């Protein structure tokens, strides 16, 4: 089937005008083929004898495929007619996409100063609270794609919490290795303090109400005035007492994180202010907004595991501090008051001390001081 036009892919044979055995001369019209433009007579380019007809009238034949065989003059075997060149593929080379040419090539995306993250990726990162800076991008030129963000969010890879866990572990291991701990515990009647607090809080609107933990902090801070060997740092083989009293307050973060940043000069803070400071500290701790000084400044730590706690806490000292005070749950217990058994709310207050700096004798008196201060809540 000859090509009869630029866009012709196949033609339909209408009729043969020669029959097998006929002699044909180059230029003879041999058949009629139907194309979309109409019926066209097709010619032969060989001289010889028409031997075999292959295509049948009505048959559609692709351009380049044989329709008949002609035996050329002096030829033994038949030669294909109407497709004088071989049935090889198109003479044009297989179209390969040319490489992007010359000056209109899109130049490689060069790295800007900031993170290369697509708008979609950034949006998703914000939704998932993922930090794009930590993600390795798999997009063109290392850009961060939407998929990269979702992948990073799903993977529990090193989170700040885990890093913190490791840090806590290291500190606790060091503490137990280096500090000779001794432990004392004392149960304190907290009823007067709690009753006083309930009355005070009733007078205040909810945002201004004070938690009992604040009273504990204040009592510890005031008690430290007299018992200075529990407030300071062990550095360079010596104890350095601290003039000021910055209580480290243990705050839990997430499921398994713990941090103990300082509230500064607790002994001088009035209760309402101490409450605000505590609230602010807890919020910032949980948000990741602590200042580094707050983490390094505590002169002693107070840990109170709150209502989900145990009766007595046996805490571990945070080096380079030299003591840590723990409070257990508030429990209702039978108590002897003026010879009678009455229900009182009590709390266990424990002290771990660095035996290089203090001893049990002083520790016991310190705890008694705390207990005494808590009996006069209005003076805190």
């Amino acid at each position: 089937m000859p090509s009869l036009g630029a866009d012709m892919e196949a033609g339909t044979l209408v009729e043969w005008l020669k029959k097998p055995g006929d002699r044909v001369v180059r230029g003879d019209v041999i058949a009629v083929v139907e194309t979309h433009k109409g019926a066209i007579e097709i010619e032969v380019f060989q001289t010889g004898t028409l031997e075999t007809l292959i295509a049948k009238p009505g048959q559609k034949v692709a351009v380049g495929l044989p329709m008949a065989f002609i035996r050329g003059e002096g030829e033994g075997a038949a030669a294909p007619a109407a497709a004088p060149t071989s049935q090889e593929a198109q003479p044009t080379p297989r179209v390969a996409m040319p490489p992007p040419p010359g000056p209109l090539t899109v130049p490689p995306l060069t790295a800007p100063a900031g993170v290369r993250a697509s708008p979609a990726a950034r949006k998703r990162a914000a939704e998932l609270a993922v930090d794009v800076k930590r993600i390795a991008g798999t997009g063109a030129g290392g850009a961060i794609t939407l998929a990269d963000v979702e992948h990073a969010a799903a993977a529990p890879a090193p989170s700040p919490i885990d890093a913190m866990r490791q840090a806590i572990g290291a500190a606790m291991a060091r503490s137990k290795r280096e500090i000779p701990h001794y432990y004392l515990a004392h149960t304190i009647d907290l009823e007067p303090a709690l009753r006083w607090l309930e009355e005070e809080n009733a007078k205040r609107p909810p945002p201004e109400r004070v938690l009992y933990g604040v009273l504990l902090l204040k009592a510890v801070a005031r008690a430290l005035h007299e018992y200075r060997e529990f407030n300071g740092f062990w550095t360079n083989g010596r104890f350095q007492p601290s003039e000021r009293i910055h209580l480290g307050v243990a705050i839990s973060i997430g499921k398994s994180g713990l941090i103990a940043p300082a509230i500064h000069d607790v002994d001088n803070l009035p209760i309402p202010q101490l409450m605000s400071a505590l609230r602010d500290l807890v919020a910032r701790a949980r948000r990741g907004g602590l200042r580094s000084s707050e983490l390094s400044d505590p002169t002693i730590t107070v840990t109170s595991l709150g209502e989900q706690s145990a009766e007595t806490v046996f805490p571990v000292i945070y080096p380079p501090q030299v003591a840590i005070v723990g409070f257990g749950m508030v429990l209702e217990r039978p108590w002897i008051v003026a010879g009678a058994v009455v229900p009182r709310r009590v709390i266990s207050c424990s002290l771990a001390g660095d035996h290089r700096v203090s001893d049990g004798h002083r520790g016991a008196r310190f705890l008694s001081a705390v207990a005494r201060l808590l009996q006069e809540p209005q003076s805190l």
Partner: protein
Amino acid sequence: MTATTYREAVRTAHREALQRDSRVFLMGEDVGQYGGSYACTKGLLEEFGAERIRDTPLSEAGFVGAGIGAALAGMRPIVEIMTVNFSLLALDQIVNNAATIRHMSGGQFSIPLVIRMATGAGRQVAAQHSHSLECWYAHVPGIRVVAPATLADARGMLWTALEDPDPVVIFEHATLYSLEGELPDDARSVDIDRAAVLRPGHDVTLIAYSANVQKAMEAAQQLAAEKIDAEVIDLRSLRPLDDATIMASVRKTRRAVVVDEGWRSGSLAAEISARIMEQAFYDLDAPVGRVCSEEVPIPYPKHLEDAAVPQPEKIAAAVRALFGDHG
């Protein structure tokens, strides 16, 4: 330095070219006796004679094709098509001959032809006389397209264009002819393939060509009062586009608005926006804005014509939109 006008700069450029190179001659409607429909060629006929300053009949296809033929055969013709509006009659010669002969001949022939046309709206001359079809020409491989927006470019681009072995189409915005300014007395040619940063800035890049460069500068002034520091780029060359200058600016400012008097759909602004997306996507802090002509044939009454084409206020508003609430 001499105080002069854009029109004068064009005329001076012609005179210098005709003096410098005997192969240069000018053809076009009313370029001779009339002195040029925009008075750009006044006096040239008297100075250089009818052989070199040829008034043509109203046969755009004929005389543009003749210009191509003359360039083929070794001359350096300047063909003036009165306006881009009439160039449509010659589009076949430009697109099918001027742009293709080098390629179709396998590099045997080049066509060192310069075509100048007035373009644009702003004089209440209605729909058939107010087109901005630069992007149609900028679309075609085989020709260069430039748009002088300043006096220096009006004077200098013609020189460079005449030295170019390939066809160069120069678009002169009709409202620029009376633009006043100063030019140094010693003539100089200017490059015709780079954009120019006319006003450096940090907050947004305004990309414009031709008469809109001025409008972009006005918008930049408005915006400066609002503490938005706009960088203004005069494209100068529409084909090829100077990607390097555009991207360097957008990487710095992270925002871009393209000003283009063509209709928005399929505009040159769309091409530039696409390139910015391809090459500076990760540097963008906002989508690329466009200020183009509205989708309407240019109307006759002034208030409607003004509303149809880019204006400084529209440019400033487009910039503000990129900043959202932060202003």
